[in-house]
C-alpha cells in the first residue's frame, strides 16, 4: 500500500466521522422520529375515518340533502326512521341475514377445514382454489349468483328439475320474501366459507399432534378429541374470525345491492342498502346518516359479545398465555 492511498483512506474516514449535521441529529431524535413515522397513517385515518364518523353523527341530526347544508333538527330523523316500517323490516332482515349466514359459514367452514387438515394429495393446490370465492370481487360473483337465481333460466332449477328430477317446476328464487332472503344467505355463505376454513385450518395446524396421541392413549373417542382438544384450542382464533365475520356480514352492502337491491318490496332490504337508497339516490343525507348511525349500537354489541367471549377464554388460560 503506498502513501497516497493510505492518505486517501484517512481522508474518507475523516469525512465519514465528521460531526453530524443538525438534520441528521433531528432524524435521530426519537420523539421527532416517532411523530414523523406516525403522521401519515394517523393523519389519513383521522381525516378520512374519525372525522367522517363524527360528521355522520352530526349529519344524522340535521335535515341535510345533497347539495344543501341542513339545519339542526334534533332527533327528528331518528324518530321518523325508527317509526318507519321499512326500517324496522330492514333491522329484522339484517339480523336474520347475519345470524343465518354466520351459522352457515362457520358450520361449513369448520367442516371444510377439518377435511383439508387430512393428509391429501395436492393439498396446497386445493387450499389455494378453495379460497377463490373470497378473492374474486364480491359484486362480480354476486352477478353470477343473480344469473343462477334467474326465474326462467336458473341453472340451479335446471339441475333440480331436469337432472336430479327432485322438483317439477322452476324455483322463483328472488320473487318473494323468504326465498329471496335464503338466496342471499346462501350466496353470502358461499363467499364466507373459504375465509373461515382457511383461518381455522391455520389454527388446526398449530395444535400439537402429541395432544391427540396422549388422548388416544387415554382412550378418548374421536368426538371427545374434537370436543376437548380441537375446540378449546381453536376458540381464540375462531373468536377473532367470528368478530370480523359478523361485523362485515352485518354491515354488508354489495351482495344484497347486486342480487336483489332490497327487493321484492323491501323484503330483503338490509340497513346498509336502505341507508344508501335513502341518502344517495333519495338524496336525504340526514335520514340516511341516521340509518347508518343506527347500525353502530349493533356493531358495538357484536364486538363486545365476541370480545368478552375471548377475554373469558384468556382469563381461564391464565395471564401466562397472553
Amino acid at each position: 500500500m503506498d502513501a497516497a492511498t493510505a492518505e486517501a483512506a484517512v481522508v474518507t474516514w475523516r469525512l465519514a466521522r465528521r460531526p453530524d449535521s443538525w438534520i441528521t441529529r433531528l432524524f435521530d431524535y426519537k420523539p421527532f422520529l416517532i411523530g414523523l413515522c406516525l403522521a401519515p397513517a394517523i393523519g389519513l385515518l383521522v381525516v378520512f375515518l374519525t372525522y367522517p364518523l363524527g360528521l355522520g353523527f352530526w349529519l344524522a341530526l340535521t335535515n341535510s340533502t345533497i347539495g344543501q347544508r341542513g339545519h339542526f333538527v334534533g332527533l327528528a330523523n331518528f324518530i321518523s326512521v325508527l317509526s318507519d316500517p321499512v326500517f324496522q323490516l330492514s333491522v329484522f332482515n339484517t339480523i336474520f341475514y347475519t345470524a343465518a349466514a354466520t351459522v352457515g359459514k362457520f358450520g361449513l367452514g369448520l367442516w371444510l377445514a377439518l377435511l383439508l387438515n387430512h393428509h391429501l394429495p395436492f393439498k396446497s393446490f386445493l387450499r389455494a382454489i378453495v379460497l377463490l370465492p373470497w378473492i374474486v370481487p364480491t359484486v362480480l360473483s354476486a352477478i353470477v349468483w343473480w344469473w343462477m337465481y334467474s326465474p326462467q333460466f336458473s341453472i340451479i332449477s335446471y339441475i333440480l328439475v331436469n337432472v336430479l328430477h327432485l322438483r317439477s317446476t322452476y324455483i322463483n328464487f328472488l320473487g318473494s320474501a323468504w326465498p329471496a332472503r335464503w338466496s342471499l344467505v346462501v350466496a353470502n355463505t358461499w363467499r364466507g366459507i373459504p375465509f373461515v376454513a382457511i383461518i381455522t385450518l391455520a389454527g388446526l395446524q398449530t395444535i400439537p399432534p402429541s395432544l391427540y396421541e396422549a388422548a388416544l392413549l387415554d382412550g378418548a373417542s374421536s368426538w371427545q378429541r374434537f370436543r376437548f382438544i380441537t375446540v378449546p384450542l381453536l376458540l381464540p382464533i375462531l373468536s377473532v374470525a367470528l368478530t370480523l365475520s359478523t361485523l362485515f356480514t352485518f354491515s354488508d352492502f354489495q351482495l344484497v345491492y347486486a342480487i336483489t337491491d332490497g327487493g321484492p318490496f323491501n323484503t330483503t332490504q338490509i340497513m346498509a342498502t336502505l341507508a344508501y337508497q335513502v341518502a344517495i339516490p333519495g338524496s336525504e343525507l340526514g335520514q340516511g346518516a341516521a340509518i347508518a348511525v343506527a347500525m353502530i349500537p349493533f356493531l358495538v354489541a357484536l364486538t363486545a359479545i365476541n370480545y368478552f367471549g375471548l377475554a373469558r377464554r384468556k382469563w381461564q388460560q391464565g395471564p401466562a398465555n397472553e
Partner: protein
Amino acid sequence: MSEAAAGDELLSWDSRARRVVTVYVPLALFVIVLLFPFYWMTITAFKPDSEMEDYAHHSPFWISSPTLHNFNVLLFHTQFPRWMLITISVAVGTTILSIFCSVLAAYAIERLRFSGSTHVALAIYLAYLVPPTILFIPLATMVVQFGLYNSPISLILTYPTFLIPFCTWLLIGYFKSIPYELEECALIDGASRWQILRRIVLPLSVPGLISAGIFAFTLSWNEFIYALAFIQSTGNKTVPVAVLTELVTGDVYQWGALMAGALLGSVPVALFYSLFAEYYVSSLTGAVKE
C-alpha cells in the same frame, strides 16, 4: 399369520372406504359447489345468444359453438378498457400509499417503543372494525366539498382507511420477528434510524411487505360502496361498479356481456392471487393470529 394379514387387509380396505366416504366425497362436493359459479360464469361468457337460454336443445353445461361475441361487445362497444385502467391505477395508487403509511407506523409502534405505543396499536386495530357502510354518507359530502366528486383520487384517499389498519397490524407482526440485536449492531456501527429501516428492517420483512401489498391490492380492487357513491360519470367508474351499473340496462339483461365483464374483472385478481397464494394465506392467517 395369513389370517392376521387378511384381517389387516380387510381393515385397511374398510378404513380406505371409510376415508373415501368421510373425506373425499364431502371434499369433492365442497370443491364443486365453491367453484361451480366460476365455471358457470366462464361458460356463459363464451356462449352465443342462441344457446344462452335454450336449455331444451343445448345442454346448459357445455357450449356447442363457442363465440367471442360477448367479449367483442364488452371491449369495443363499452368503456370497459377504460374502467379496467382506472381500477388498476386506483388499486396500485392505494396500495403504494397504504404500504408507505403502514411501514412507517408499524416501525414506530414496534421498533421505536414509546410509552403509549400499545394504545396507538389498539386504536389502529379498532379503526379496522369501522365498516365503510357507516362512513360513506359523510365521506360523500366531504368528497363533494373537496371537489373530488367523480375523481378516482377520492378513492385513492379513502381506501387507505380500511387498508392501513390491516397492513399495519400485519407488519407489526413481521417486524416483531426481526431480532433486536441486528438493529443494535447497526446502531453501534453508526447507522441512523432511517438506514436501519431501509437497509435492515425492510429487506428482512419482504415477505410481510408482499403479503400486505397483495392484500391491499385485492381489497381495493374489490371495493364497491365508496366507488359507487363517489363516482357517477361513466368514464371514471371502477370495474365492479361499472359492470353492475353500466351493463345492466333496462329490462333485458345481457347475461353474456355481464358474465364476460365479471370474468375479465375477476381474472386479474385471480392471476395475481395465484402467483402469491402462499403469501396471501399467510397474511390472512397471520393478521388474525396477531
